[in-house]
């Protein structure tokens, strides 16, 4: 009887221990899932073993168009080179390939040339395997004599530029996969330069291992998609321009996927390749580059370097300016105070009156692209030039909406202020002021600085 009792106690004890272990395991599994979701590393897929050879992951970005980070003017903005590391590092370096499809900048303005260099350096810091230069990138690289320089930072291919520059049109990297390797070849095609029928030249036959062929094309119309599909060589067609967000454009044919990469670095496209029943399977998703992702310090420092270069190159003073009509000139908000003291005092409590300080806080007070929306009249001669030269024209002031006021002041109000007057949507654009569209009345309320009974006369 005593023996039976002890056996019974032992069994109950085991049940108790098992229960504890089960409960603890369940809790930790739940926590891991939750953490993965919170830090933006997409859902449960981020929990895959980092050194697993069961799949490979290809990260694809492109069309930065000069957007190195969100301006920060409103919350919830997506993007930022400095936040990409958190996404890339969710996969071990040995199991991934990182590609940028180019279009680093939109123009060859002085500011865009600075950005071009910074973005190239950023790709190096972010461990990109490959950059495919667009037509514009290629022109800039050639004019700056930078092909070799860029190649020293990141592998480069391009469908544009002269052969004399030593450009390559395709690139192959072998990645461990299952018990062997998989060869991923990425090629760039300019259909005006090479007919689709000749793309086999871009891809080498891989006899001894599995292969995945990716083709980057700028102008992805339906004719090109169907011609590439017919060739049966390409597994994934990447449309490097077009859609503003990454998206699957066509997955109707087995073993052939077409997708776009989006714009302005708001998303990172992720292509996970695994094997299902002996065939390669492609899983595409777009990962938003959200504000809650951690910033990589090296990239944060690089952005500070960019701000420093913008300051040293004095881009603000070089900004091209129009001439105001009829000899008009800006006078500064302070000069309006003598007569319009009520409005001035009200305005000075509003966000517009502190617009310049918000730039100083983030070190962007020398960046023309930012400054133009935080000062008076930068588009015109006699408008804002720099804090030292035109201190009275800092902030979004009276003359932004009411027009240049010197003549109005001199004539003690006899001459009315006239054009040019800025409109709200000049600065409250979708990219910079996300909540503005549809909430115009709420925003107008925020800047009310006129006497309510005289609102008609005082509004711009």
């Amino acid at each position, binding site marked *: 009887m005593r023996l039976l009792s002890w056996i019974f106690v032992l069994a109950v004890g085991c049940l108790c221990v098992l229960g504890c272990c*089960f409960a603890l395991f*369940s809790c930790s599994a739940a926590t891991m899932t939750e953490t*993965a979701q919170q830090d933006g590393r997409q859902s449960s897929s981020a929990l895959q073993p980092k050194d697993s050879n069961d799949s490979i992951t290809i990260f694809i970005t492109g069309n930065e168009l000069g957007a190195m980070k969100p301006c920060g003017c409103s919350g919830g903005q997506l993007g930022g080179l400095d936040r990409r590391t958190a996404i890339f590092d969710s996969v071990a370096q040995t199991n991934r390939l990182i590609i940028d499809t180019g279009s680093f900048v939109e123009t060859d303005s002085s500011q865009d040339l600075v950005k071009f260099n910074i973005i190239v350096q950023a790709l*190096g810091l972010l461990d990109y395997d490959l950059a495919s230069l667009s037509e514009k990138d290629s022109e800039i690289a050639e004019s700056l004599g930078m092909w070799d320089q860029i190649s*020293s*930072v990141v592998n480069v291919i391009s469908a544009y530029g002269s052969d004399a520059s030593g450009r390559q049109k395709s690139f192959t990297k072998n990645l461990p996969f299952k018990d062997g390797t998989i060869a991923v070849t990425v090629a760039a095609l300019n259909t005006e330069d090479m007919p689709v029928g000749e793309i086999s030249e871009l891809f080498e036959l891989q006899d001894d291992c599995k292969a995945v062929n990716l083709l980057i094309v700028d102008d992805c119309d339906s004719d090109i998609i169907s011609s590439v599909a017919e060739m049966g060589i390409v597994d994934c067609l990447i449309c490097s321009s077009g859609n503003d967000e990454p998206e699957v454009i066509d997955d109707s044919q087995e073993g052939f996927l077409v997708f776009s990469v989006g714009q302005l670095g708001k998303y990172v496209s992720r292509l996970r390749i695994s094997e299902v029943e002996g065939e390669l399977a492609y899983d595409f998703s777009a990962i938003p580059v959200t504000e809650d992702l951690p910033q990589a310090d090296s990239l944060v420092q690089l952005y500070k370097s960019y701000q*420093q270069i913008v300051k040293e190159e004095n881009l603000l003073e070089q900004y091209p300016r*129009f001439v105001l009509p009829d000899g008009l000139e800006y006078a500064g908000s302070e000069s309006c105070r003598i007569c319009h003291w009520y409005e001035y005092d009200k305005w000075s409590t509003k966000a517009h009156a502190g617009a310049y300080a918000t730039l100083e806080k983030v070190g962007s007070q020398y960046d023309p692209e930012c400054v133009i929306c935080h000062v008076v009249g930068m588009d015109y001669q006699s408008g804002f030039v720099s804090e030292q030269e035109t201190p009275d024209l800092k902030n979004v002031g009276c003359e932004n909406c009411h027009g240049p006021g010197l003549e109005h002041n001199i004539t003690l109000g006899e001459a009315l202020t006239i054009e040019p007057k800025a409109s709200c949507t000049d600065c409250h654009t979708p990219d910079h002021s996300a909540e503005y569209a549809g909430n115009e009345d709420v925003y107008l309320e925020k800047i009310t600085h006129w006497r309510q009974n005289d609102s008609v006369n005082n509004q711009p």
Partner: protein
Amino acid sequence: MKRFFQIVVILMVIGGLLYSAGAQEQPQAQKPAPETEAGSEQAEMPEVVVLGPKIQVENPTHNFGKMAPGSKNKCEFRFKNVGDDVLKIKKVKKTCGCTVPQLSKKEYEPGESGTVKVTYRASKRAGAVSKHLYIQSNDKLNPKVTLTIKGEVAKKINVEPKRLKQILKDENAGCPPITITSLDKKPFSIKKFKSTGNCIFVDFDPTEKAQKFVLEPKVSMAKLRKNPNGRIDIELTHPSTDRVTVNYNLLSRFKVDPPKIIVFNAEPQKPTKKEVWVLNNYGEDFEIESASSEKGIIKILSQEKVDGRYKFELEITPPETKNLRKIFTDELTVRVKDGEKLRVTCRGFYSRKLDTGQAKK
């Protein structure tokens, strides 16, 4: 013995409770994570009768078709609570700043319908658009419904050329006509024409309406010299495009090739050699008076005139980097005999190996 059985009962109760806690926790850990990626579709509904609130969206995708750049567009998504309990909308989340969802109320009785109103201001960039919104609710099987808005931002006005290349020696700086065409065939007038420093101007009749204008710009050479790079803004009365912009550049007298010196993977005190050429874009003979570096990072090794062009051999020695400074800069100033100064910026980016090295120390 009685005490012994009390202990056994307590242990059994504790074990049982912990087991049941674990069993409840487990499905939560394995539950698929809410889809947060663009391109995800509305979750498929299993074919089982489920009690509770249930959201059903009439048409989760709205296509605006062709939109004018910067235009404001509105649409509505209708949904219905087809469940048997109150549907509570927790949030309507958007993936980008271009949409503003508005909900008049947040709780919907069984059978009740609601609407998500969306305002979308199109970007000024032409191209296909696809944006996503998510309705988060207490529908247990479908807690996050994806709504998609699609469309194409299409230009309504075309301007050619988009960039003017001005040449000092040509008549009227070689400025070609500017053609503005209404792509949607809607007639418009030209309201204003302005250029940087007023160096380019044009005669036009603001009362004239047409689908196409060919403007003949005139150039003030003196003003153009002062404003060699700039833009032209042409304001229009077209219903969806209020202005077009044309950039211009004056072909400068001298060309520096390459115009900037860039050094990647720089290492302190490890010199790099570069070649820079200076030539006259107008084929004029010229002499260089002097060349010097601002900070001494650029050293001029040699300077020679070859076929009317000047060739400089330079050595760039990156300075020691303090506080993990990522870049260094210098400027080479070349003074031409008639007084014109050419500035060549040098910018270097330190090697990332340096970061690792210093971090290890």
